[in-house]
């Protein structure tokens, strides 16, 4: 049990920063550049860790709580989620609700920390982030409901359990395909990826997530970056499990399938970011409402 927990955490903590590296590399390749080394996010984290804190005098403890929660929450959420075919260390009936709202908690603290700086600019980003998060949540919930209906259980371990290959082959295949696409959109929104938000631009009018973390520096900013990478890995795990639902029985092989799937996902995100332009801000809610409706439709397909 303890060994299992340790492996779970080690895989999460060591592998996560590689994913942003792969995304950046894919984008660079698409643009015809060689790109930063794959391990650049690790170097960035080390560099940020060695720096000192710079805190504004107008901020309170809320400002420093934001990054900490943003780092801890994905780790907690990862404990509830099976990694590929490896079972989750922590599992109980109904943990999917906790899973969804853990991320809401992280967002609350990030937004609160942004508002705590008192800058109107950060308030704007906070407002946008909360709006989009509200709209992304129904999609995630309906997608999980579809899985709950298919598996007959209410814990993430059962949802992403061994019934998936049979479901893909059966009558529920189309519904699973729909929620796979919907979850991919949610992944892009939640991790502020390109069609919805660009983590690399610093243009006031279009920034969403980036604007909220501008005032963090040094180790705090490192925690935010690390937390973002962990979040990408945790949400990506759901997609990878849905798309590659095989159980080989050997845990090492399962782990390889899972990690390979994550790398593929990172490449896919890089490709999407390279070939798509950013959506206009007013179009983002429309797209999110669209995906919610599509996942409702997937639920109808499963329920009939």
């Amino acid at each position, binding site marked *: 049990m303890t060994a299992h927990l340790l492996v779970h955490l080690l895989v999460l903590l060591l592998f996560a920063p590689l994913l942003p590296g792969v995304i950046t590399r894919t984008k660079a390749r698409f643009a015809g550049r060689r790109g930063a080394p794959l391990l650049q996010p690790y170097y960035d984290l080390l560099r940020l860790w060695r720096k000192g804190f710079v805190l504004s005098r107008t901020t309170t403890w809320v400002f420093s709580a934001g990054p900490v929660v943003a780092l801890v929450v994905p780790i907690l959420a990862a404990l509830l989620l099976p990694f590929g075919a490896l079972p989750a260390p922590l599992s109980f009936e109904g943990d999917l609700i906790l899973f969804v709202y853990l991320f809401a908690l992280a967002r609350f603290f990030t937004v609160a920390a942004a508002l705590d700086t008192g800058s109107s600019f950060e308030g704007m980003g906070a407002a946008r982030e909360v709006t989009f998060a509200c709209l992304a949540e129904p999609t995630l919930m309906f997608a999980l409901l579809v899985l709950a209906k298919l598996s007959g259980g209410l814990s993430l371990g059962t949802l992403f359990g061994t019934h998936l290959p049979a479901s*893909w*082959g*059966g*009558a529920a*295949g*189309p519904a699973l*395909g*729909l929620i796979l696409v919907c979850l991919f959109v949610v992944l892009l929104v939640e991790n502020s990826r390109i069609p919805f938000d660009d983590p690399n631009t610093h243009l006031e009018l279009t920034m969403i997530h980036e604007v909220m973390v501008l005032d963090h520096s040094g180790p705090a900013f490192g925690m935010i970056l690390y937390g973002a990478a962990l979040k990408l890995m945790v949400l990506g795990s759901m997609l990878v499990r849905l798309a590659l639902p095989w159980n080989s029985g050997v845990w090492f092989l399962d782990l390889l399938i899972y990690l390979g799937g994550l790398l593929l996902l990172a490449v896919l995100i890089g490709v999407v970011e390279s070939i798509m332009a950013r959506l206009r801000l007013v179009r983002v*809610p*429309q797209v999110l*409402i*669209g995906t919610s*409706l*599509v996942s*409702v*439709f997937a639920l*109808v*397909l499963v329920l*009939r």
Partner: protein
Amino acid sequence: MSDVNSVILLVVILLNFFTLGSARLVACIRAAALQGALLALLPVTVHGLSGHSLMLATGAFTLKGLFIPWLLLRAIREVRIRREMEPLIGLVPTLFLGVLATVAAFLFADRLPLLLEHQDGLLVPASLATMLTGFLLLMTRRKAITQVVGYLILENGIFIFGVLLSTAMPLVVEAGVLLDLLVAVFVMGIVLNQINREFSTINTERLSALKE
């Protein structure tokens, strides 16, 4: 994926949502064309390869997938419009209505006394949903050309239903329906040009205003 049919029909339903949610006319027409082209595969996938189904498929493909969309795209170029500016009901509410209509179609199709082999398939609900989508487009849009697209999608829905009956239905009936559609689009094209010339816009709301 269970079989090719349900994948095709699923994409058809998704295209319904897309046309309801999109304000860009070119994208709407392309979606309707893609829908028509996909539906043209249905006679072959449902009834297998035979002279009858192949004829039906090629006829539907050339008309729905190529010719009518080409006519519509040409009409857009003539009257120089790109997008539906203000639909009667906003795009997101229409999308909601569309999903409600789809859900209703599914519920209704489950109540219908169908043959056992059609009971679980997507054919009947998809056809009802597509027809309702066509109605919605016809009702909620102002521009004459989106209404034509709505008419096209309505016909696509009827076509899906027709596929169920196509072994019992002679080819002449299908040909008649397709010809009807073509004539309707032609007439709409001419009417469109007339409206455009009279009012220098193709907003059909103007038609209900009295002129001395």
